[in-house]
């Protein structure tokens, strides 16, 4: 799957998580904003981690050289 496709999946997952949290833990406007901040932060962190590792392997400059005992 490509980079864009998976990024859209991350975005959608964040959206669904925030909707779920709003449905299940609805406790007033300021607390909802707090929950939303947490979800957004988590989604951004997870996406960045994945994107960094994916991009690093896109056009690698070195390849695996197997060691002796395989």
């Amino acid at each position, binding site marked *: *799957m*490509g980079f864009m496709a*998976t990024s859209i999946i991350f975005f959608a997952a964040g959206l669904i998580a925030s909707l779920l949290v709003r449905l299940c833990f609805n406790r007033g*406007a*300021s*607390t909802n*904003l*707090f929950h939303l*901040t*947490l979800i957004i*932060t*988590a989604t951004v*962190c*997870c996406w*960045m*981690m*994945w994107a*960094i*590792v*994916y*991009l*690093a*392997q*896109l*056009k*690698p*400059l*070195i*390849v*695996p*050289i*197997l*060691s*002796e005992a*395989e």
Partner: protein
Amino acid sequence: MKFFNDLPPMDHFRSENMSLVQLIMPVESAQHAVSYLGELGLLQFKDLNGDKSPFQRTFVNQVKRCSEMSRKLRFFADQISKAGVTTYPNPDSEEVIDLEQLEAGRFLGSAQNHLVMAETELVENTYSIKNEDRLSLLEQPEPSKKAGLRFISGIICKSKELIFERMLFRATRGNMFFNQAPAGEQVMDPVSGEMVHKTVFVVFFSGDQARSKILKICQAFGANCYPVPEENNKQKQLTHEVSLRLSELEATLDAGTCHRNKALASIGSQLWNWTIMVKKEKSVYDTLNMLNFDVTKKCLVGEGWCPTFAKPQIKEALHQATIHSNSQVGIIFHDMDSSESPPTYFRTNRFTNAFQEIVDAYGVARFQEANPAVYSVITFPFLFAVMFGDWGHGLCLLFGSLVLILREKKLGSQKLGSFMEIAFGGRYVLLLMAFFSIYCGLIYNEFFSIPFYIFGESAYKCRSTDCSDAQTAGLIKFRDPYPFGVDPKWRGSRSELPFLNSLKMKMSILLGVCQMNLGIILSYFDAKFHGNPLDIQYQFIPQIIFLNSLFGYLALLIVIKWCTGSQADLYHVMIYMFLDPFGNLGENQLFWGQKELQMLLLILAVVAVPWMLFPKPFILKKQHTERFQGRTYGFLGTSEMDLDHEPDSARHQHQEDFNFSEVFVHQMIHSIEFVLGAVSNTASYLRLWALSLAHSELSTVFYEKLLLLAWGYDSIIIRIAGLAVFAFATAFILLMMETLSAFLHALRLHWVEFMNKFYHGDGYKFKPFSFKALADEED
């Protein structure tokens, strides 16, 4: 920007609004009011009598009485534990403290002691006579009597016996004969209440002086002397008498012990309640001592901080106090203005409490400053996981944290050891750390350092069908990259470390630049909230420009290099951006227009430094002279001044002198800290790479050198031994030590690199007068 203005205020982002309130209470309802406020726990009283010593305060007698009563209660608790009576605290009944019952119990306790002492003496006496009889210590032929030889017999602690003998020898210059025998059973020493071994002794001597010396030495050593007659039948008679008295006394003692235990048991069930009540009373009087009497001496005046949302609850509590104390006059409760900074109060629940405490450990937030805990809830476990990434270890952490969370109620009510208490307090932090560790472990593709092919096939294959050059030239990439995480073919290859090191270092820089930018952006929101345009224009903007034109640009180069697969050397690019900005880039060119862009960014960075250093102090000086124009004369000390000064502490207005050099130096320090910090903080994020490498290497070593090695043998014993050693090494070194280590480094990254961009942390915590807090403090 208008979007941000329209949002509701976020929970936990800024501390609660506080108001300084003044309470005027009539004396009869004061005690009720303060104890109801203690139950509520939402008002922090200010100490208006701070300059008085504890003995000059109004309610000092009541405080003394409470201390006295708590001392008596402690004495009872001691007695109960010594007597070994088990009591079951009965929290339902609320009896009033009955002083007579307390006194009766105390008397029983002391009577008990006397009886025990008397019993001990008699027992010792018995032993001494019995032993001497048995061992024929008094075997003397008739001539000795004629020689005027006399003896003293007694009983002494076994531990002191040797010194005692030596002392006697020295005192009588060797003219004595000492004989001893062990007393048999252990005897209860009435002084210490323990069972000690005792020795029966007899000393033969001659002369009166020797006798007095020996008696004095016996007294000094705490040896009890008992007379033993010489004739046999007299001895028997004495033994009989002593045994009779002993049995009587034992009966009395038994009855006494029974009675005492009953009394203690009945008190014991109430003891805990009473202790709490006395503590509450004492704290109420301590609080009352903080209040002032007003001029009429009929009312107490107090000041305190309370959260604005709590004012209706406090009013209700005061109303209840007025009703219950049958007072005619209500309690007056109103707001006051203040110029000093209020305390910081965050309403945390059990989830956010641990994260808030982590932030508070560095410094309590200034009043209504941006709270980093909001972002730390996610970024702290995330950075931990970047350093800990292994989903096998993550599963172990998850298991541990779930155990703590599911047994929350039970563990919360017990008293835990100090290590368990820390672990229990941080159970939600551990839970989040576990979730993120599992995620990062899946990304790094490490399960106790074993890679898996969960997300599909590897992107690498051999160049030729027989894989002849796999060990020399390596595999080639023939498909799209592995969809999620690090390709499993890298594990165990010879070029694994160069690849992973490059990946993790660049990842650390990217994550670091993002977190630092977040910190600077939070400083923008702070400046906007406090209405401080100076900070925005002359601090936020140059800081963003400086950081991003250097390290934001580096992050951009990293991403471009990855996307284009260029072979450019980024170190070279960054260094020659400064050393030779006009030079030709050659093969280090990553995109068109790079040289021009680099020159522009360099100029922006160089301009940003004086921008954040110079304008602000001058503008502050100009503002100050405008505001305080005409007030450059100092205050004259006339009597009219005193009318302005009220006895309330919070209303002092200060005439601040504007010390330009101080402000300028402060700004210079701030700018230098930022500029140099930009480089050092970015490099500091490389610890994410270092710890993740260490964890992965340790994991590999334990797996390959312990488990695989042991599994290679055929013997089942060696296999099980290997498994056991692997489990221990994983549990103690990887799970405990590495967890603590990664926790510490993630903490440092937050406290220093993230928080020094926007956080002041020089506030003070809201500590309300609360009975619940008192109970927690005691434990």
